[in-house]
């Protein structure tokens, strides 16, 4: 195809021809082409070098003495104004001198030398004028040529002559008029070419090919014309700022008449759009034709208005319809795959035939229609995806009320994370990540709520939560590209859902740990256990009322330690150190103290066995070991009045004696509720060991009751009340005077457990009543500390 760019560069091979008129290779046409002005010396020069004497008619020319050499000629009176050159004579002279020098020489020799004649050159007074109709005639030649080009006929005139014609007109200051004539001539041909397309061909592809041909021809023709009139382009056009270059002039004419033949332009655009639509629908189309025609539009400067605008509208409609249709019929993963494919296609379209400038708005249009407008619907459907992932992991998804459509099939987990990944990528292109994030948050909260608030599923709660968290983490890593904001969303949502039910999750987590740390967990390796502890710790981190957890953990730990039920002391200590890192040493001081007591008790028991008291006074047949517990570290146990068998009482007394002899100043109190013993019994079938609590010995069973758990919780609340009071007093003591709102703010910062402002008010009023504080007399919003 012809590109205009190459046309505007001047072709160098014509430069020679545009030089001055006094060229030595001058071959003058038979018509009058004489120069005006200065004398024509070339003949004289020639004569000089020949050193020949020629005779002329004195009337017309000048004469040379044949004996004279150059010097004589030079000294002859050479009055330029009186020189005249008769072309006809020149020819005759030349002819004779060319061929007949020797002849003349010969002849001259025969005749006696003439005396030297004087050379007089006289110029004509009148300036030479152009021949009549010079312009018309010159133009006629050019016009014929141009016409032939357009009509694709051979031209009798050769290029040299045409260039010369242009040159001549320009030199004689007729460039402007030449330009206008050329323009007019071109216009008439261009307009008729375009008009001839009107009403052509029903078939759009055929029509488009015709248009292309017309354009192609036009380009070739303008190129040629420009070539011929290059001199004009480089002189007159350059010097006249208001005038376009010939190529541009041609384009303008083409554009003008294309728009005048409006049916043609519209039909062309329509044809192009139809072709693109066909391609979108899967047909093969002539991409080269598309490309050429679109380049034509670009060259004509009408691409944005005439083509791009309707194209984008068309695209918008196409994808709007497609988006709706596909959303109804396909599931989310397929839909997203399809969108991806489409976006690729449109991108390629810009590489293959659309102008590069269209890429951005085109892709934006497609994204908008296929994605943006369907975000909500996609997200709604996407829950299905997430449900499948969780169902695959047997996560309890009760509480999620959206129905599953039967069209889904169980796919491998890997595919689903891919689908989510695709969704994430596509959504980020249309700035819809916020919607996705929000929906994810809602989903986690809703699903989590189902797990946490269903009381019947309490015993599975921790396990379900762990699995749920693990799945979410996996999706976050594989599908959501470890997005920070999404990470926070998951955390916040988890924190919310785990605290929906006060206290119970904390209790259950403590219980869960108790099970894991208890002996009898065969098959769990140390690493597995460590891993589980870490994961549980993550859940623990979300709990707001950590003191509830502490109370239960302590209680269970005490039982494990006292009854020797720990699976591994290392695991126990590992858990403590994890809690310490998480909550600080204050949280774990007492727990560590419990361990110390156990260690110490071992030592005490050893030395007791060795002691004199043990050896001499102990009743036989009983082996007893004692745990000595430091109050304050251990949970408080209700005192129970128990009547023990006599032997046990004796034993206790002896031990007490021993202990107090070692550690004076201490008080020992027997916690008989915690005692247990192993009865070695001989049955008929053999010896058996029964581990029973002391109460069982006395036929009283001690079972952990719901009440016990409730009272543990109660004690935590009581403890919280003290903490609030203490905090209020502490703050007021420091500040002496503080406003209500500031006091509340301070308290929220200092207290580590969740509490409502109402409860804080209660404690404040209680303290006012007890005269720790008073309301300020002048401003009731302020409290004063009463020392």
């Amino acid at each position: 195809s012809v590109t205009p760019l190459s046309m505007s560069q001047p072709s160098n091979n014509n430069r020679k021809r545009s030089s001055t008129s006094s060229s030595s290779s001058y071959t003058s046409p038979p018509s009058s082409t004489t120069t005006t002005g200065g004398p024509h010396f070339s003949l004289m020069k020639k004569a000089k070098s020949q050193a020949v004497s020629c005779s002329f008619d004195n009337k017309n020319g000048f004469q040379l003495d044949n004996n004279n050499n150059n010097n004589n000629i030079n000294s002859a009176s050479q009055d330029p104004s009186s020189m005249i050159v008769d072309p006809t004579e020149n020819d005759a002279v030349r002819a004779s001198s060319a061929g007949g020098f020797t002849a003349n020489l010969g002849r001259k020799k025969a005749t006696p030398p003439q005396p030297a004649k004087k050379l007089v050159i006289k110029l004509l007074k009148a300036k030479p004028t152009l021949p009549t109709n010079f312009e018309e005639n010159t133009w006629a030649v050019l016009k014929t040529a141009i016409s032939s080009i357009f009509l694709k006929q051979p031209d009798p005139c050769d290029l040299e002559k045409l260039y010369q014609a242009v040159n001549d007109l320009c030199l004689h200051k007729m460039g402007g008029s030449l330009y206008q004539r050329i323009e007019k001539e071109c216009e008439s041909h261009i307009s008729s070419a375009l008009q001839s397309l009107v009403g052509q061909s029903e078939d759009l592809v055929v029509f488009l090919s015709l248009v292309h041909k017309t354009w192609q021809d036009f380009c070739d023709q303008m190129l040629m014309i420009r070539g011929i009139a290059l001199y004009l382009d480089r002189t007159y056009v350059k010097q006249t700022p208001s005038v376009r270059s010939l190529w541009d002039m041609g384009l303008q004419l083409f554009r003008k008449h294309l728009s005048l033949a409006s049916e043609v332009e519209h039909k062309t655009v329509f044809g192009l759009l139809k072709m693109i639509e066909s391609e979108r629908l899967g047909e093969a189309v002539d991409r080269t034709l598309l490309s050429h025609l679109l380049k034509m539009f670009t060259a004509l400067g009408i691409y944005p208005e005439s083509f791009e605008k309707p194209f984008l509208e068309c695209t918008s409609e196409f994808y709007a319809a497609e988006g709706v249709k596909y959303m109804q019929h396909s599931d989310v993963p397929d839909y997203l795959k399809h969108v991806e494919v489409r976006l690729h296609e449109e991108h390629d379209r810009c590489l293959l035939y659309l102008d590069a400038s269209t890429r951005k708005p085109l892709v934006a249009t497609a994204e908008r229609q296929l994605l943006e407008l369907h975000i909500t619907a996609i997200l709604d459907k996407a829950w299905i995806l997430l449900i499948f992932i969780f169902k695959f992991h047997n996560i309890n998804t009760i509480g999620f009320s959206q129905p599953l459509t039967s069209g889904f099939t169980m796919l491998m987990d890997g595919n689903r994370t891919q689908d989510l990944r695709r969704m994430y990528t596509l959504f980020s292109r249309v700035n819809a990540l916020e919607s996705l994030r929000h929906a994810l948050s809602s989903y986690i909260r809703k699903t989590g709520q189902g797990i946490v608030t269903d009381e019947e599923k309490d015993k599975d709660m921790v396990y379900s939560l762990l699995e749920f968290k693990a799945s979410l983490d996996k999706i976050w890593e594989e599908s959501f590209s470890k997005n920070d904001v999404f990470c926070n969303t998951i955390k916040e949502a988890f924190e919310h859902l785990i605290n929906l039910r006060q206290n119970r999750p904390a209790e259950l987590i403590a219980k869960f740990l108790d099970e894991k740390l208890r002996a009898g967990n065969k098959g769990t390796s140390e690493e597995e256990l460590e891993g589980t502890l870490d994961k549980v710790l993550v859940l623990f981190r979300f709990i707001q009322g950590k003191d509830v957890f502490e109370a239960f953990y302590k209680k269970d730990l005490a039982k494990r330690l006292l009854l020797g039920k720990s699976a591994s002391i290392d695991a126990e200590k590992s858990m403590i150190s994890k809690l310490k890192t998480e909550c600080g040493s204050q949280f774990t001081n007492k727990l560590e103290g419990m361990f110390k007591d156990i260690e110490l008790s071992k030592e005490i028991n050893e030395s007791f066995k060795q002691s004199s008291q043990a050896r001499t006074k102990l009743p036989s047949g009983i082996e007893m070991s004692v745990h000595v517990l430091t109050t304050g570290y251990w949970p408080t146990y209700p005192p129970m009045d128990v009547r023990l068998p006599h032997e046990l009482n004796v034993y206790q007394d002896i031990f007490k004696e021993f202990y107090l002899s070692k550690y004076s100043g201490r008080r020992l109190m027997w916690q008989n509720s915690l005692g247990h013993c192993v009865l070695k019994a001989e049955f008929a079938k053999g010896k058996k060991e029964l581990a029973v609590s002391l109460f069982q010995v006395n036929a009283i069973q001690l079972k952990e009751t719901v009440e016990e758990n409730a009272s543990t919780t109660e004690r935590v609340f009581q403890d919280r009340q003290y903490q609030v009071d203490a905090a209020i007093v502490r703050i007021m003591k420091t500040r002496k005077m503080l406003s209500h709102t500031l006091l509340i703010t301070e308290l929220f910062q200092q207290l580590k457990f969740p509490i409502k402002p109402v409860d804080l008010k209660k404690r404040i009023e209680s303290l006012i009543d007890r005269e720790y504080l008073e309301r300020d007399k002048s401003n009731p919003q302020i409290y004063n500390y009463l020392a």
Partner: protein
Amino acid sequence: MRRASSKKASSNSTTSTNSSAMDLFRSATGKAATKELERIDQLFYSYSNESSGMIDPEGIEYLCSDLEVEHTDVRILMLAWKMQAEKQGYFTLEEWRKGLKALHADTIVKLKKALPELENEVRRPSNYVEFYSYAFRYCLTEEKQKSIDIESICELLELVLGSQFPQQVDFFVQYLKTQVDYKVINMDQWMGFYRFCNEISFPDFNNYDEELAWPLILDNFVDWVKSKQS
């Protein structure tokens, strides 16, 4: 008589230390003042109980009937305030003297006449807070008692604020009688209610903010009223 004169002497000394400008003027005039004091004391003894030396509830009843005022009338409470009487239902001689002297009333007739002016005086905003707070303390009959039972509080509210803030008192009394959280009211809550009546627009509570330091009982009261209104 001697007793009286000795009493007079002692009373002279007390009155001279506690006297107002008028009293000083009066005492400057000498005789008239002495006469007045005499009559005040006489009035006292006409109501007082011989053995206790104080006017007791029975005496107060007589006093009220002579004043032609119900003994549940707020003006009696105001009189007690004027006297700064410490024990509910009892007036000591000192208290009697203080009150009547301030009112320039040495006869029943004068005392009766002084009551409207007393009421005006008490109702002045600057005095009313004091009176309101006094009313509460006056009802703390037991030693170390710090709160008053709901029943009595309702009566006291009616008496003391009923005329000034009838709507608020009405609602609050209703609330107190129906709620179960509180069995008694303490001074802080009592004073809080007065501030509440003065500051908060009723019954819309537009300017009530429970995040401020209002006593919790009032937060609950507002919620209760709002739930009734909807």
